[in-house]
Structures are given as C-alpha cells and as structure tokens.
C-alpha cells in the first residue's frame, strides 16, 4: 500500500505520460462532495443550520436577560451541531455499505486506507464549514440582539473556551466516524451513538458501577474539554473514554474495512 497522501507509483505509460495514482486532494474533494450530494446528507446539514438559526431567533425574542456575549450565543447555537453532525460522519462510512457504493469506491481506489483517511478528513472539513456558517449566523444574531435589546455586546472569546468547544466537535465527529466504520450499518451506528451516552451516564452515577463506568463515560470527554480547570481525574477519565469510544473503534473499523470483502 502506498503511503497515504502520496500519489501511487508510476504506472505504465498512458497517452498522456505515465498513469499516476489518484491524488489525495482529489479523493478528499470527492468524499466531501459525496456528503452533500444526496438528499439525506444535504437535509441533515440544512436541518443543523436551521436549528442553529432557530436557537438564535429564540435568543433574540426571549433572551433579553441573557448576557450578550459571542461565546454564550455561539455555545447555544452550536448545540444542534454537536448533536446532529456526528450523523454525517456515521453516514459517510455506512452509506458505502448500505448503498453498496463501496463496490465502485474501492474499485476506483483499491488503497482503501486512503479512502478512509479522505472520508475522515472530509467529515472534519464539513464540520469546520458548518461551524463557520453557524459562527457567522451567531455574529449576525448578536448584532441584531445588541440593536434590539441595547446594552453592551461582548465579542471577545476566551481562547481556552473556544478551543474546548471546537475540540468537542472534533471528538463528536470522530466518534461518529468510528461508530460508522466499525458497525457498518447506519441504523445500528446511529442508535448506539445516541444510546450509549444515555445509558452510561446515569449508570455511572450508581456507586457499584461507577469505578468501572467512569472510565468509559463519554460525557467525561466533553467535560474535560469544556469545563474550565476540569482537573486531572476528569482528564484521565476523558482520555480513557476517548480511547475506548473513538480510538478503539477507529482502529478496529479500519482493520475490518481493509480486510472486508466488498459485495
């Protein structure tokens, strides 16, 4: 397998010189396009953006007492992003199997690892693009809120806070990718993605389960990233949960996909 990112070895001479491998940038572009060129993918992104706008509108109408800071507005507006965007990651991995397009994808690029890396980067790029759109909408909402409600508007954001927020989106997207990759089935991956935190979080409040479950509670990841001065213990738990719910399924899913028979 050629190294990821580098074009493949030179092939036999074609009419326009030697045939080169598919450049990684092209692979990445195709994977981004595949996320937005289907109804399901496109609507998912539209719904995320629409919910963000809805939240901003609600803040405008009822949020007179809310502090008019960019970070408060952005945190609120990105709630649907964190909740729904991982599904984009799940679908980019599972659609290849549920729609059987893997047959075509891996025929055109047999170096499957490159495809998987391109998919993961593409999902992160889409996440970044959505965040930029939501940030722009937040800025517009904040300007309007300042004009309507009056009072001071705080634009400055704490770097630590912002990085933590972005970090959680990266983690959520990676977790979606990992679930999609290892489970290979949209419905199962989506259900488990939402169900596991719902089950683990309340269970880990139970004394007897806590010593074990606190190490795999996904909420520890976002706690470590977003709570200021979360402390070493939260970071340890968060790292363990990250390894368990993100790294492990990513690695296992990659190994499975590289070996999987494409039918």
């Amino acid at each position, binding site marked *: 397998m050629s190294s990821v990112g580098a074009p493949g*070895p030179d092939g036999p001479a074609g009419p326009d010189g030697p045939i080169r491998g598919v450049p990684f940038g*092209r692979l990445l572009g195709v994977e981004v396009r*595949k996320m937005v060129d289907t109804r399901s993918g496109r609507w998912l992104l539209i719904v995320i953006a629409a919910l963000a706008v809805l939240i901003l509108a609600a803040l405008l109408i009822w949020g007179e007492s809310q502090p008019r800071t960019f970070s408060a507005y952005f945190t609120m507006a990105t709630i649907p992003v964190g909740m729904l965007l991982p599904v984009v990651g799940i679908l980019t991995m599972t659609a290849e199997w549920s729609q059987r397009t893997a*047959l075509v994808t*891996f025929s055109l690029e047999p170096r499957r690892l490159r495809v998987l890396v391109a998919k993961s980067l593409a999902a992160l790029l889409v996440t970044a693009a959505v965040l930029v759109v939501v940030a722009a909408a937040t800025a517009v909402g904040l300007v309007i809120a300042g004009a309507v409600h009056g009072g001071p508007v705080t634009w400055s954001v704490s770097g630590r806070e912002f990085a933590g927020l972005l970090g959680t989106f990266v983690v959520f997207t990676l977790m979606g990718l990992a679930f999609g990759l290892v489970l290979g089935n949209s419905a199962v991956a989506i259900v488990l993605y939402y169900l596991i935190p719902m089950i683990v979080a309340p269970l880990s409040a139970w004394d007897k389960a806590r010593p074990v479950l606190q190490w795999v509670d996904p909420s520890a990841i976002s706690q470590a990233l977003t709570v200021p001065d979360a402390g070493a213990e939260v970071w340890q738990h968060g790292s363990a949960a990250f390894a368990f719910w993100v790294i492990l399924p990513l690695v296992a899913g990659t190994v499975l996909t590289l070996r999987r028979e494409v039918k």
Partner: protein
Amino acid sequence: MIDVQHLSKHYGAVRAVDDVTFTVPPGRVVGFLGPNGAGKSTAMRCLVGLSPATGGTATVLGRRYADLPNPGLQVGVLLDASAQHAGRTGTEVLALGAAMLGVGAARARQMQRLVGLTDAEAKRRVGAYSLGMRQRLGIAHALLGDPKVLILDEPVNGLDPGGIRWMRDLLRQFADQGGAVLLSSHLLSEIEQVADDLLVIGNGRIVAQGAKHELLGGRGTAVRVADPADRPRLEQALASAGSPPRDGGDGALVVDADPATVGRLALQAGVALAELRSAQAGTLEDVFLQLTADTSREGRAA
C-alpha cells in the same frame, strides 16, 4: 490483458472458485458462463481485488488490480449496476467518477449520451431507474477513464432488445479496437452472439473453455434412408469412405462429413434418401446445459 492463474476462493468448506485459470487477450471478448452460484461473480470480485483470493493469482495489464495506480483509467469495471446510491442522480454518479479519475465533466456527459441516457433521465435519481437504465449508467461509468480492459458482470441483465443489440455492438467495437472484454452472463444467446471465446464454469470449476466455434462446432450430417432395408448398404458405403456413421436416433444416421459428400456417397451406393441435412449445430444452450448438468441444481433432467 487479463491473466488468471489457479485462482481459488474458499468460504470454509465451500469452494466458490476452484483452481480457475484463463486469459483474456487483446481484441477478444470472453464470455464467462455458468449457472447461478457457479462462482462467476466471486471470481470477478477476486480479479478486481474486492475479495481476497484464497489462492492463485489474478493480474490485469500485468499487475494485480489493487496495484494499478489509477485503475479506473485502465480497467472499466461494472460488477453490479444496482450498487449505486439511490439518492444520487445519474449525472452526479458520473460526475463523481469523472472527478475521481480526473477526466472532466465533458467526458462524463459524453459517456452519458453514448450509452443512450437522455439528459432528462440523467437528472433523475438512480433510485427511480429501471435495471436497464442502471446498466447503461454502469457502462457509462466503466467507460469514463477510456480503459483498455472491461470487466462486466451480467451487463445485459434488464436491457431491452434494443439495449442488448447496442451493448453487443459496443463490446464488439471495443474489442476490435484492441480492448479486452470479460463479461459474464447467464443469457446464453447474448454471449453466443458477442463472445469470441467461452469460459464455462460450474461449481467453481471451469468445465469448458476455448474459442466459441470450437465449443459449438458443427456435428456433421444427419441422413435417413427411404427404405430401412438399404440402411446397412449406406452404412458400409460411408464406413469405406472413411466416415463411419453413428446412430442418430429415430432411424437417422449421423456422419462426420458435409451433406454434399454424404449425398454423393448415397448416390454411388444407389440408396434413395428420405432426408439429408446438416446435423443441428450445438447451440450454446445445449452445450451449456450438457457441460454444467453435473453441477447445476436441476441436475441431468435439465
């Protein structure tokens, strides 16, 4: 251009593909024939590297398919026309393929028109396509990179008669320009009309392979005498001319000679004939059923 040596694919105790060896040279259309579940699709998936082979080697243009730097530019593959995202339009499917290969949108449009998909049809979602339209889309996709080799699994399935004729002409032309085509089908009449060589597979093993005319070669002449009492005389005349006859059933004799020779011998022997004709050349269907009878699920009765 395709070289398969001792290819095997086992699933546990099941030998889906068992020691299959064949080649597809340039300029030839090779028909891959076999009953359902004989191993055609599995063999093709192994050839394209989508299924790991248990043993043997398969190369395309001298390399393992997975080692081709940009296989879409060298090999056109259509393994399942239905394996497309139902939510994408035909145009989008071709645009994605063209983007991956770096051949440009104009080429995608050109191929779409070449396979007879109208612009209006191309704008519809693949989920709304008939199987025949999906096959056309799949062929367009396979041709995007202007490949030298085509690997097509059941490409004529679902095509209307016009489409079948079109496909035949397309493959013939492709091979005549020096390309190599491997296509599988269970539609025997189709393969019979387009293939140069045949590869018959049953239960994972090749049961027959060779040029089509060799496999389907004529079976001589059938002759029936007017008076059964003359039959021994004709048999003797034929035998002494070096063509001992076989019993063709129903009172007829079958001889490995052309009808004119048999007629002349009968005249010389003074035997009146009731019937003289070319023994029916084996149709592919006869050959196919005969060759695969041991392995087909219908057994000998078929």
